[in-house]
């Protein structure tokens, strides 16, 4: 077997008390695609950052071409031949393709750009990735996402030394057909003897292009082996393989009258319509892959993002989602995913952050509400066990978990009927997580309707009484709270469950498709181009001779 060009051995990395990686080993072999699998939070991004020099490892060894790398920096690692193609594109949108390809090393004489040399080199680089009809002068901003992704790859290939390419979820923003083109290109790179690390959430892609799979779980190596040893079930088990801990509150709740009902909500002209409801005292989980439209759905329900059609009822009364203010008055609250950008008012004090949403309802003739509201806010913060020196200090001085508590207190002070959480525990350490789960459970028990969006499956399953899975902006199916992570993954990645083609295949898939979704189901086909027949793609060698033969159609 060929010697790996890059080898990581026993790599560990901790962020404060959180162990992000512990004792992980990884080898990248020329001419092979190594797929990195794992749930959100399993440590994939950390591993990539260690690999590309963006993060310093705490311990373990890192070798490129057998030479140990002691203190990697992004520049030195790149010079050594390890290149990365990121999910968030690193291209400068206002510049031309050629300029982007050679940014930082533009051919120039005494500071004046040598235009023709730049054009020629760019032409060559673009031809290499099959973009033969793309002009090097095209402005990046105007290119479709897939082309940009290919330009990104072309840029990586223009580096002086390319031995390893890391792909971090390159197909997230692409359509099926575009993804297919990209995958074909990766296969061509493999034939040229490139070593590649491919990170994706889409299992079917791994089987299509992978040679080897490395599975991370909770920051450590779960399993690794040739992908031909795996089928989808085994891969999912390797990714999940964990007891759902008792971190989560007991679910003995009874869904009462509907607190929120959404009918025929459509966010764009051609997007599928979505129906959902959550009863008072019920926790509805919403699952799905990144980009499945979960956060957008919450923002639309909250009136913060425009919708094209749809009716909303809060507590039985119809509401027009004309803006956050209207929805707030109707009794809906939203804790956003990105606390810093879409939640906190960093310069303001903790108290001011809590009361901001309730000022108007408590105010008399435009004056700030009196002492009572502040005292109520303090009581809420006390009951949430906020840890702060003083409630007058700026909210930006708090840790992530405490910031989340401040936002929770903000919405509780508005006395909502429905509370929506978008990734409630993102960036929050384990201790605070448990507390938040308890609070969410208590809130539901006290009669609030709760919606939780989470990418972290154990959390979703542990909290929710009922789970709605989204895929490509549509409801892919509904699962009971007793569903397994496998069920959710299947529905979310479209490798079973709701897909019509899977009716014959999946063992325990296709679970309890809710009665109320067929309308939205029917709207799926136009958005997804016709998929190839479920036979294994006719790609070269070691791909999927997996015994399971579970249909991986979409």
């Amino acid at each position, binding site marked *: 077997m060929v010697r790996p060009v890059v080898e990581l051995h026993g790599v560990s990395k901790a962020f404060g008390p959180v162990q992000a990686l512990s004792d992980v080993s990884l080898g990248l072999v020329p001419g092979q695609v190594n797929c990195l699998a794992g749930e959100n939070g399993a440590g994939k991004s950390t591993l990539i950052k260690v690999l590309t020099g963006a993060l310093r490892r705490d311990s373990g060894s890192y070798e490129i071409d057998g030479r140990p790398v002691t203190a990697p920096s992004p520049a030195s690692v790149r010079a050594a031949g390890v290149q990365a193609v990121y999910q968030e594109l690193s291209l400068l949108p206002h510049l031309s393709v050629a300029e982007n390809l050679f940014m930082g090393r533009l051919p120039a004489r005494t500071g004046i750009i040598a235009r023709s040399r730049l054009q020629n080199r760019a032409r060559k680089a673009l031809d290499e990735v099959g973009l033969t009809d793309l002009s090097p002068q095209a402005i990046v901003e105007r290119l479709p996402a897939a082309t940009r992704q290919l330009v990104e790859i072309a840029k990586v290939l223009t580096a002086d030394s390319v031995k390893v390419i890391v792909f971090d979820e390159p197909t997230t923003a692409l359509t099926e057909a575009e993804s297919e083109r990209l995958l074909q290109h990766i296969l061509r790179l493999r034939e040229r003897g490139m070593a590649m690390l491919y990170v994706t959430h889409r299992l079917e892609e791994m089987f299509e292009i992978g040679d080897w799979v490395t599975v991370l779980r909770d920051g450590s190596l779960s399993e690794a082996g040739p992908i031909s040893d795996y089928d989808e079930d085994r891969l999912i088990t390797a990714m999940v393989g964990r007891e759902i801990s008792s971190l989560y509150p007991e679910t003995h709740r009874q869904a009462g009258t509907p607190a929120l009902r959404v009918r025929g909500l459509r966010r764009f002209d051609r997007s599928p319509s979505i129906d959902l409801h959550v009863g008072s005292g019920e926790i509805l989980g919403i699952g799905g892959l990144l980009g499945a439209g979960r956060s957008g759905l919450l923002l639309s329900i909250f009136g913060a993002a425009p919708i094209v059609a749809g009716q909303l009822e809060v507590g039985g009364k119809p509401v027009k989602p004309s803006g956050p203010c209207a929805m707030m008055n109707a009794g809906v609250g939203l804790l*956003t995913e990105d606390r810093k950008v879409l939640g906190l008012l960093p310069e303001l004090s903790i108290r001011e952050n809590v009361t901001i949403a309730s*000022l108007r309802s408590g105010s008399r003739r*435009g004056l700030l509400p009196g002492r009572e509201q502040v005292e109520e806010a303090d009581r809420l913060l006390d009951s949430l066990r906020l840890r702060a020196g003083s409630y*007058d200090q700026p909210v930006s001085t708090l840790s992530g978990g405490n910031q989340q508590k401040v936002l929770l207190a903000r919405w509780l002070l508005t006395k909502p009927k429905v509370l929506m959480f978008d990734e409630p525990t993102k960036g929050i350490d384990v201790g605070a997580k448990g507390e938040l789960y308890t609070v969410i459970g208590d809130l539901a028990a006290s009669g609030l309707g709760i919606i939780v969006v989470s990418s972290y499956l154990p959390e979703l399953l542990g909290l929710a009484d009922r789970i709605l899975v989204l895929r490509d902006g549509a409801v892919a199916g509904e699962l009971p709270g007793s569903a397994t992570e496998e069920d959710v993954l299947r529905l979310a990645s479209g490798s079973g469950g709701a897909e019509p083609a899977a009716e014959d295949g999946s063992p325990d898939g296709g679970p309890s498709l809710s009665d109320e979704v067929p309308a939205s189901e029917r709207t799926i086909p136009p958005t997804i181009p016709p998929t190839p027949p479920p036979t294994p793609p006719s790609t070269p060698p070691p791909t999927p001779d997996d015994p399971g033969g579970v249909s991986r159609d979409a």
Partner: protein
Amino acid sequence: MPKLIWREPIETTTITNRPPGGETDDASALETVPQPRQALEPKGEPRRRVITLGDIAGRESGGLVVLLVAIGALTLASDEFLTGNNLSNLARQVAIFGIIAVGQLLVILTAGIDLSVGSILGLSGASTAQLLVAGVPILPSILLGVGIGTALGIVNGLLVTRALLPPFIATLGMLGIARGMVLVSTDAQTIQGVPEAFQVIANGTVLGVPNLLIIAAVVTAVMWFVLTRTVFGRYIYAVGSNPESARLAGVPVRMVTISVYMISGLLAGLGGVLLASRLGAGIPTAGTGFELSAIAACVIGGASLFGAKGSAIGAATGALIMGVLNNGGNLLAINAFYLQIAIGVLILVAVGFDQLNTRRSAASGG
């Protein structure tokens, strides 16, 4: 697509002083160090440090110190400084300027900027003078003059919130438009012959206190009240801190933004009327460069151009500092050009100190 503005990175404190091996929920062990700059804590928690001026006066403290030092130094250096005549002179010089600075402050608090205040001041003043000369009674003339400023302020607000122009550009455009309008309407000629009764407004006194000072004090007091005691005031800080967060917390961001530009325009209009009254004439070029001085006053008084930091008292203090320095320079016969240098240095020092403070409090984990 929501427009996200990323500003200064927000330092968060991760609590690390957890007792080793202890999973206790001992709140005191997990307490973060209190921020140096914060109001006094009424709950009487244990505090490990001396109360500083900053605790009492907040971000304006630096400005207050500078102001007191400047006044003290001038009192010693010049016999004339602390005379009633000079002080009322100083008050008249500073008042109009302070009114504009307070209006500018509201805009700066929302992380915006209003470059058009000087031009609006000129337009309002000259228009009022023209109306008066044309025989319109005093009160309607004043109302119309202030109304012009208010209207242009609303236009600024609409340009920022509806046309989504950056505040700098929107008000830069208005700066040119308003100045051009006044030059066209007056044909660049000074408007003379305003009634005596109108001139009394800015030049008169009540019990020896110049009217202008009273008006400026009232404006500052009202703005202080609005900013600290009303929902609208709190909304202004929220919009300046993070407009998207504010919107998602139910703050009517557009309404607040339009309102602050409107108020800034209104106060610029008021300043124009008062200046016309003080000079007894409508001067088309009046107010040129006032916008930058008003911004300087806000910054010296502790406002942050990134929004959400600053106070009405601070802006007034900043205006006073600049007035006192100019006045002292005159008294001591210092070349006015050196004064410009001094004020420039003052701005840099004020902001430099603020940055240093922010960084230090972030580094100390407060």
